[in-house]
Structures are given as structure tokens and as C-alpha cells.
């Protein structure tokens, strides 16, 4: 279990607990985090669950695979610190992670 804090597009901060083994996207959708669309439900097919990761956390997350990398490159609001939240499985090690949600996934 990890407590993860999301900064929603309007600046609202919300902390939620996500069980180990679920993806960050699943936790966000189940808890109604605004701005995580996740249209494909976690199949890495749509790139609508993008989040920004603070620099100090980037190296502590599981690495991107080539599909995630390719999808991210073409996201409209991509930054160097972008990840697809469906591709990050939660573990205790992620406790305290803070993520920023983009203004739009489109």
C-alpha cells in the first residue's frame, strides 16, 4: 500500500491509498482523480493517463518500456518527467509519491 498525492488540474491536492499490485491509474480512476481519463483501462493503448513526476522520484519508478516511451513522445502535453500512470504498479516503495495531472490529456 502506498499513499500517493495527486495535484489535479485546478490545483486541488488529493491523497489516496492504492493497494500494492494495482496501477497508479487504477487507483486514480477508482478514487475519481480529475484529469486521469484512462480510456483504454490500462492496456497502454491510449495515452490518456499521463502524469508529471517530480524529479527526485523519476529514478525510483520502474523503467518505461518501449511502448510507453513511444506513446508518451506523442502526448500533446508531454514533458521530460511524464509517465503513463497505467504502467506503474504500486508498491510500498512508492509511499509518499506526488504526481501532477496535466490540464488535459488531449
Amino acid at each position, binding site marked *: 500500500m502506498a499513499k500517493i498525492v495527486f495535484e489535479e488540474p485546478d490545483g486541488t491536492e488529493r491523497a489516496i491509498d492504492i493497494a500494492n499490485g494495482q496501477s497508479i491509474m487504477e487507483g486514480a*480512476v477508482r478514487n*475519481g482523480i480529475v484529469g486521469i481519463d484512462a*480510456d*483504454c483501462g490500462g*492496456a497502454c*493503448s*491510449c495515452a490518456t493517463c499521463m502524469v508529471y513526476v517530480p524529479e527526485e522520484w523519476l529514478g525510483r519508478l520502474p523503467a518505461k518500456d518501449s511502448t510507453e516511451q513511444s*506513446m508518451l513522445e*506523442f502526448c500533446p502535453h508531454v514533458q521530460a518527467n511524464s509517465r503513463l500512470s497505467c504502467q506503474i504498479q504500486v508498491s510500498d516503495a512508492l509511499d509518499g509519491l506526488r504526481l501532477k495531472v496535466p490540464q488535459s490529456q*488531449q
Partner: protein
Amino acid sequence: MADPLVIIGAGQAASQLMASLAQDGFAGEVCLVGDEPHLPYQRPPLSKKFLAGELALDRLYVKPAAFYEKAGSHLLLGRRAERIDRSGRSVLLADGSRLTYSTLVLATGSRPRELPLPGAFYLRNIADVDAIRPRLAPGKSLVVIGGGYIGLELAAVAVKLGVGVTVLEQAPRLMARGVGPVVSQFYARLHGEEGVVIHTGSVVCGLAGKRVVCEHAQYDADIVVVGAGAVPNVELAREAGLAVEDGIVVDAECRTDDASIYAIGDCTSQHHDLVGRRLRLESVHNALEQARIAAAAICGRKPPAVQVPWFWTDQFDVKMQMAGLSAGHDQAVVRGNPDTGRSFAVFYLREGTLIAVDAVNRAPEFMMSKQLIAERAKIDPARLGDEGVAMKDMRN
């Protein structure tokens, strides 16, 4: 107190509608009627990871029960709507109860097209998977009738479970309604390499016990599953006198010809600028998009911009992502080699404008094309086919 907003159908469109209504500040009561005993769940995994046993039931559900239980929303699950009384603004349920509505949203979805084959299975909902999965044991034989997305995804899962799989498709090629011939050929090769037996041009005449009888051959099977497309659930709308064509006719805001009744998802027929006509889309993307549009309209907010339709299928280690609508294309351009390996894309153009893409294990082709299709971009076909030109440089 005002009558509630009533939603008939508890699939992904309904679930997204409830989420979007909440986000858009809808203050009224919401009542969701669904004929399955389940909370709204994702259907795509039913023929993929859920069927394979790689995804637990609770992870199929879009939202936990707590989301729906919050003040003002009622779930009536395992309850079937029988009739809409427009003059009385109410819905009659099969158990005889009546719900009055302020606004009604039809999210009734679609159902498998049935063939006159008694004893055959279909794959549309959780109960179907529960019935099929125990029969997919190693050494058993499966005949799939229909070589479309559902049939081929099922075939891919089953053969990996050690089942002997034969797919019978009546058209001359696989997935003929959705993709071009190059892609059909690729999937025939892919399934052949993985041990699935495919017979195209195979018209099934009947099912005699566990024997599938075709015109010129017959196949014995421990289980027969039909994947022959879907038909929209439009009966409630039609009986209520709403305009129905191939689906329930809705305007750009997903409103039917009754101003207090909306329809969203697989059951609708809506005008699409990309093709310049009305059509019905069976896809998660369409269900979610129409739900967001309807929620905005109900709340008097500006609707989100319409996106390029897209779809995906996972079979074996191959993810195909499709964007746009290829109907009416006058040119198809192949990028990469579809005859070897498992990675290529086919672009579809009309009068030089990119209108669709089928991207096989090609995320960049899919993502970039989605943008270019939305821009109605004219792209040099030679550049599209040239692997030396990166997709991000494709904008002329």
C-alpha cells in the same frame, strides 16, 4: 423534490456518464438501471486478460461500489427496463415498478448477433466468460464461428491455454469489416504461426450436437463460440417512438428527438464529420466520449471537442491500434513489412488526406496519425511509406 436522472444500461458509457456528471457539478439524483448483477465493468478484457485468467473480477469494475453509493445515486442492478412512457416521463421495470425521470439516458449497448445454432456460446458479458472459461482446458477443441476481433482474441487466448482452435470465417478474409486486406493477411499468418487453424470463405450451415457443419466440411468441437458481430439494443427506444436507424438517432450533443432523452454508446447512431454521414460505432472510446458530451449537455457546459475515433485489439504479442475511419479511402500505404515479423502500419488516404491508420505494434504511427487525421492533413504517401522519415517529422 425533482425526479431523478435515470440511466438505462450499466456499462462503461453509463459509468463514465456518472463520473462526468459529478465532475460537471450535476446536483440532481441519479438512478442507474442495469440488467446484469454487476457494477459497471470494462468489457475489452473479457476476450483478453480476464478470459485468460490474468485479471481478477474486482479489477474489471470501473469504479468501486463506494463511488456509486454516495449521496444521490441509486443502483438498480439485476433489473430490466421494459418500457418507456414518454408522456408520463417514466420507465417501467420488469418487476412492475415505475421510475419517473427528469432526464433519461439510454446506454443500452449492443448484444451479440445470434446465429441459429443451438448450444453455441457467445462472448459479451461476465456470465459468458464464466461459462466459456472452464471449457477451455488443455487438449479440448474449440471452434470459433466468426473471424472478427472478438473471435480472434478468443482464439488467441484459447490456443495459449492449450486448446485446439479452429476459426471459421465466412468472408474471404479476417476482420474484413474493420481493416484492409494487408492487415487481414497478416492476422491469418500470425494465427497460423501460433497454431490456430483458420478457414476463411467457410459458411456454417448448422450445429449437430458438437459437430459444426459447413457446406464442404465439418468440424468436431468440445465447445463452439460465435463471434458474428453485434446488434444494437434499440428496442426500448423504437417502442417509445424515438427515431431509430442502425442505432438510436442522436444529435451532436447525444440528444434523441425527445429533448429529455439522451442516448450514448454502442446503441447510438450519430453524424461524424470525418465520414460526412451518420454511423454507429462499437468502441470503448465512443462510449466514453459520448458520455462526456452528454454529461456536458445535461449540465449546460461546453462539450469536449470530438476526437478521432480509435480502437485496439490485443492478440498474442501483437497490439493493433486503429484510428480514424477507413471507409471511402482511395489509397492504402504500407509502412514496414507485413509479410515478416510483427510490426508494420497501413495508412488510408482519400484524395491525399490521411483518414485512418491500422498500426500493428507501432505506437508512434498510431499516435501521430491520430493527430494528423484530426488536422485533416494531406501527407505525401511516399513519405508515409518511407521508414527513413520519422513519424514525428511527418507533418508536411
